């Protein structure tokens, strides 16, 4: 793991810690910095990072606090307080193309 990937990991944790303390502006700053580092180093962001950040306002999402999570048939809809929706599939029946990425999905 190179430095850029580690930085993203650290920034992810910092963003989560800041969001836990309801310091959402600081969490946004860490999320944006992590995105920038990933983009400059041509790295894919970790799946957990993608699922817990808002694409529109860069907020770090904490379900129940600043995000709503609803299950619809076959997919999750997560709604940020800014109004942006993100959808992703759940269930492992029909082989969706994200299945190959599962190994890094440790909880």
């Amino acid at each position, binding site marked *: 793991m190179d430095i850029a990937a*580690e*930085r993203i990991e*650290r920034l992810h*944790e910092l963003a*989560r810690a800041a969001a836990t303390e309801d310091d959402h502006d600081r969490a946004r700053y*860490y999320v944006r910095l992590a995105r920038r*580092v990933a983009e400059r180093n041509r790295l894919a962001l970790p799946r957990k990072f993608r699922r817990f950040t808002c694409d529109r306002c860069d907020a770090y999402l904490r379900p129940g606090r600043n995000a709503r999570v609803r299950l619809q048939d076959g997919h999750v809809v997560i709604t940020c307080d800014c109004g942006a929706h993100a959808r992703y599939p759940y269930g492992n029946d029909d082989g969706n193309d994200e299945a190959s990425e599962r190994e890094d999905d440790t909880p």
Partner: protein
Amino acid sequence: MALTPETLPRHELNGLPVRIVESDDDSRVGLEGRVVIETTNTLSIEIRENGDSRVVMVPKSGSTFEFAITDDAADAEKASGTASKLADTQPAATDDSSAAADRAGGDAAGCRGDDPSRDRRHAAGEGVAYVTVDGSRLLSRPARRTETSGDSPWQ
């Protein structure tokens, strides 16, 4: 490429405990806290004293910073009491990184003895290494600091 004294100038500074050991402005010497925001020319340091916290913005140039590197960042987070849950999510593989850091730091001290202003390291207590870095080495946009290839100061 863990966070070691060599890689620190290219690694993430946000979240690290830091102390100002030298500064052009005497009133900044001794400030101790945690880096919370980095810009091209400044570090914002959050200082927690008896209950309340304040954030001080310090120019990178003109100051010498001493960063504390622990076994893993989670330990530091836990010590500050901000987010103890982070400790559980840290991979166990980082446990031996402090030993590696100590070794690497020793090597660095050996081969870079001619430049006392950087990478001075002295261990204090278990698993903590202190890295002294001249602020001018950190002058860079936060996202781009990682990219300078190699760890040579001569770029």
